[in-house]
């Protein structure tokens, strides 16, 4: 309730500018990382076109890296596990869609376009704004900004990867592991996710020598289903729990 309408206008213009500025900043930082996705995908055996289609259509970084990592380790035989892993990692986008649905509003094409831009960063930037207008603006600026930047840098990385040769010499394999860790980190704020994370890492490591590449990751995901279903080590009230899902402001799409 502001009495002075001019103050209100100036205030909402300020909020809108802030949303745009944040969105562009996040888009720039995230896009830079697309170079390493492009290079790793080519190193895993994909061609430049296949790499670009992953960024253009799949457009959700965690799933893209999971797919490429598993195919890189296991080749064509690991393809079903690669599909399953990228799909399971994409499940969190369902939660983001539910949160963003009221922000986006009505209209078929509008919602269809919004769905493709629904990723960690666009959701996080949007929900960090206060006014409905700034939330909508933050979503579109971040989502479209990252889409353009991530695809350009993917192409650059894929072309670069063709001439780089061994990506290990540049530490890109370690960069992928660190990126997964950085995405995981903000989710480890309660006892239950920490236990699940450690258990899943142990399960995946122990099973790696005995199962086809990709399968250890999927079986490790069962830990989450068992613990989540029984709510073992969980708190009874959700008041002090984490929000529905942690959308990362920084990271990969």
């Amino acid at each position, binding site marked *: 309730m502001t009495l002075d309408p001019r103050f209100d206008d100036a205030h909402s213009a300020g909020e809108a500018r802030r949303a745009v500025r944040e969105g562009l900043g996040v888009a720039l930082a995230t896009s830079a990382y697309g170079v390493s996705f492009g290079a790793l995908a080519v190193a895993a055996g994909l061609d430049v076109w296949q790499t670009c*289609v992953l960024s253009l259509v799949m457009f959700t970084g965690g799933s893209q890296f999971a797919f490429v990592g598993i195919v890189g380790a296991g080749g064509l035989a690991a393809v079903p596990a690669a599909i399953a892993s990228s799909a399971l990692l994409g499940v*969190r986008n369902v939660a983001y*869609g539910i949160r963003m649905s009221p922000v986006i509003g009505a209209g078929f094409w509008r919602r269809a376009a919004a769905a*493709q831009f629904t990723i960690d960063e666009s959701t996080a930037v949007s929900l960090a704004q206060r006014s409905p207008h700034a939330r909508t603006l933050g979503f579109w600026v971040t989502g479209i900004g990252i889409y353009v930047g991530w695809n350009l840098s993917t192409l650059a990385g894929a072309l670069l990867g063709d001439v780089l040769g061994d990506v290990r010499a540049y530490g890109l394999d370690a960069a992928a592991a660190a990126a997964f860790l950085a995405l995981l980190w903000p989710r480890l704020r309660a006892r239950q996710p920490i236990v699940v994370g450690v258990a899943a890492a142990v399960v*995946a490591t122990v099973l790696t*020598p005995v199962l086809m590449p990709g399968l250890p990751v999927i079986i490790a995901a069962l830990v*989450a*289903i068992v613990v989540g279903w029984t709510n073992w080590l969980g708190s009874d009230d959700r008041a002090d729990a984490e929000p529905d899902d942690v959308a990362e402001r920084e990271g990969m799409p």
Partner: protein
Amino acid sequence: MTMWTAILVASIVCVALKTVGYLIPAKWVEAPTPLRIADLLTVALLAALVAVQTLGVGQAIVVDARVPAVLVAAGLLLLRAPFLVVVIAAALVAALLRLWGWAA
């Protein structure tokens, strides 16, 4: 299955998942159990991928330059370093250790 088929199937599934969130009414999913499983699923997958990306080479478990690189990344995350700094630092550590021949 060819690589192209796999890429298209995986991509379409991921796009479908993004769309699902806009199609289901919010009250269907307010139940705590599916939300909790979705949260923990992401945690388990990311943790498993960290382990496999850090230690796996095909079906072998190998300790090489990636391990110190990921430890440095964890340290930087503890210090609340930005994402890009963490990732570049990890790449740099692994690249330098290999360049100097201190780790494979």
